């Protein structure tokens, strides 16, 4: 039974744009900036000069652009961690925890393998990061397959466990004895550090998300695996009845997703922190998930949405310094952008 016209009438809304999605996204960002500007005005800051400062210090300066690229690395990788499982119909909200586990595993290699050459050390750390993230995501997919536990809730709760898990080590056995009491591990040896790219904080870890996007895009759109994944995600009942190995694809997609988030953790410790400590990620996993959603889980579009969120994130750091806001306040602006873009992007169909 369908009530299309009538339902739509009942739920029609004030906004009904006919513009193409990209234009509506831009409109959304603009609207968010205006709202946040109003907020700045209310708290007694000049929004125009704030925005001008932000622009010149992010997109219009080499150091700013470098910072944006630095944040794009984890956003894209954790975005892929959501995008790949989404292809088979799984929702991975556990990028945050998988990132921590990847960082933990890569740190283990960096501290204890004793390898002296970066050419062996760094690939091993990437593999370890992948394995750590994949293992963490594996818990969720196994509980799903074995006991039908919903993967959204499972991955969400595991994020909190992962952060505590890392704390056990950095406050405990891995704590640097010469670190003035800070809960940090010892600094990595030079072989375990991703070399800088250019004059600022940007490092060679940038290759990882770019490679990840290309591989994911090609596999999903041009190979038999990707075709079967899309079949599983589009209609699992049909895929099953046509003999496609549903369980195998669910498992592999989730492990691959978790692994990609794990690589993000590796990149953070090897490229930025050079040791492991609590709080290496400030909600990167969630922001990656949202970037992927804004991109419709399309790996290429993810580059765009991750860039956008990264730019706002960097701007947030500047606001913290220049306008004296607490760092978490940037989530007000990010929230506004997400609301406006999510809201304007969808056509406001009646019901799912």
């Amino acid at each position: 039974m369908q009530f299309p016209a009538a339902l739509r009438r009942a739920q029609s809304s004030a906004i009904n744009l006919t513009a193409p999605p990209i234009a509506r996204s831009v409109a959304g960002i603009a609207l968010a900036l205006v709202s946040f500007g109003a907020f700045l005005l209310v708290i007694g800051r000049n929004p125009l000069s704030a925005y001008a400062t932000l622009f010149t210090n992010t997109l219009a300066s080499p150091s700013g652009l470098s910072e944006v690229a630095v944040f794009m690395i984890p956003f894209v990788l954790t975005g892929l961690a959501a995008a790949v499982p989404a292809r088979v119909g799984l929702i991975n909200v556990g990028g945050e925890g998988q990132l921590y586990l990847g960082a933990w595993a890569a740190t283990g290699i960096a501290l204890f393998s004793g390898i002296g050459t970066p050419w062996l050390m760094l690939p091993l750390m990437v593999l370890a990061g992948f394995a750590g993230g994949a293992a963490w995501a594996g818990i969720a997919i196994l509980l799903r397959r074995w006991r039908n536990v919903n993967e959204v809730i499972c991955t969400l709760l595991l994020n909190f466990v992962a952060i505590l898990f890392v704390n056990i080590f950095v406050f405990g056995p891995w704590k640097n004895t010469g670190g003035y009491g800070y809960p940090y591990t010892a600094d990595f040896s030079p072989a375990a550090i991703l070399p800088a790219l250019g004059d600022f904080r940007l490092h060679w870890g940038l290759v990882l998300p770019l490679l990840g996007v290309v591989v994911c895009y090609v596999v999903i759109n041009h190979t038999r695996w990707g075709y079967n994944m899309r079949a599983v995600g589009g209609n699992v009942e049909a895929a099953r009845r046509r003999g496609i190995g549903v369980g195998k694809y669910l498992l592999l997609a989730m492990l691959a997703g978790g692994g990609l988030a794990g690589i993000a953790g590796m990149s953070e410790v090897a490229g930025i922190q050079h040791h492991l400590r609590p709080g290496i990620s400030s909600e990167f996993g969630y922001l990656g998930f949202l970037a992927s959603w804004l991109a419709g889980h399309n790996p290429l579009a993810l580059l765009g949405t991750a860039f956008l969120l990264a730019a706002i994130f960097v701007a947030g750091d500047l606001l913290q310094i220049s306008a004296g806001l607490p760092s978490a306040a940037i989530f007000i602006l990010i929230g506004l952008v997400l609301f406006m873009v999510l809201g304007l992007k969808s056509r406001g169909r009646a019901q799912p």
Partner: protein
Amino acid sequence: MVSLTDLGELASAAASPVWRRVAGAPAVAEPAETLLGLGTPSSDVPMLSLRGITKRFPGVVANDGIDLDVFGGKVHAILGENGAGKSTLMKIIYGFYRPDAGSISMDGQPVVIHSPADSRRLGIGMVFQSFSLVPALTVTENVALFLPQQGAVLNRPWLERRVREVSARYGLDLNPRARVADLSMGERQKVELIKLILANARVLILDEPTSVLAPHEVDGLFSVFTELKRDGYAILFITHKMREVLASADQVTVLRRGKAAGTAEGGALTAQQLVALMLGIDAPKEVRNTARVKPRPQTAALEFNRVSTGSADDPRSLKEVSFQMMPGEILGIAGVSGNGQQELGETLLGLRSRRQGSVHLFGHDIGRWPLHRILGSGVAYIPEDALGMAVVPQMRVTENLVLGDIGRYNGGLWLDWRAIQTRLGQSLEGFPLPLARAEARADELSGGNLQRLVLARELTRGASVVVAYYPARGLDLVAAEKTRQLLMDCRSRGASVLLVSEDLDELMALSDRLMVMYQGKVAGLFYPENVTLQEVGLLMTGHHA
């Protein structure tokens, strides 16, 4: 016909509020007799009257100047093929669509219907093919949901008593506390009727009500019609089955391509005349299996050996099911939907685990085979729900045609869609049904197009065992006969066909043997020529023939 000027008085008489009291909160319990029924029907003023109803959609005129009079105490059948405009007309009456032209009156008074709420207020009730019931709620709660006015607190005892009263009066026999999810389709239909009666409907519209019923349940429904007529309800009933029109209708209107091809008193027309009116041509030649084979002793194509699944008290789980299907045989499965038919196919594919018993394909025990091996050894499977179980909605037609078979059309890991398209074209050559264009997305296709897509995929692979659920569902008469011919072709090249259908005529026409299922058990296995429709119908509902 009464002229418009006379209608005022008559209308107020007909609208005398006997029926209005039906569902209001009662101050005192009144005897059932006075609470129910509409009083004496006034038979010469139509309760519902349509004049010149026209509705256009982009590219089609769905309804073209249709006139229709429905009288209290009468059953009026609307007969027509798929796409003749029946559903559009019903949706106009019920307020989903607004007509582009034409007028509607009730009891002679012109009325405007903008929404289902309007039509309900006027006393029009509709039973949809897919019921508007909430399965998770009880019968009582479903009824309460549709009551026009009620207090803040649900008066469950009162509601339950009302359901029992109406059930008793019209022979509906329902437990008010049962969850709708646990009811059979026939029982759900009864809940719909109770709902409408208690919500003060006077004109009851039923959309293909018999499609979910076994033959003797159809007779039961018609006797409920008789009771409802006695109490003055007008019944408008949509169907495409001649037999039902002849059995129940006082009046019949035949729709063809959006126009009323004719209206007549029931019994005035023969079945042949009705078909001619409905199709505008002579009926397509019905495909019949005229050379029925008796199985010879050889290796069965498919054998179920005392197979049981699920829990013993679930009517859908199989219970010690045994049968053999021979090469070159069509084995028809008759049964009311939800009696183990779906489990039969899913057990064959290994989607459902067996508690006991074994399944053999050409003599091999396939119990531990992975699904792709079962399909690879020549099993084709046409599921009951094309959109839900057979196609990927977001994928294009081409992508869906090679679903699960991509290795046959594309050797390596890298996909070359142009080459796939070419090879697909070759393997579809000679397929008699028209297919949607290759670039269309499956979720944009009509039901008929979807079903043809699935048929094309499954019947062009040279399968040796074909499992077909309702293969002609959603197809027009001509395509349906072509589909039946396709199944006969499979049979004549030596494949065996397991045909699951709710259409007993189809089963009787095609099957070499007929197996009846009831509550997951084999209720009977016959040669069709040895049984009557009535006997099969009784077995389908748990009676012994």
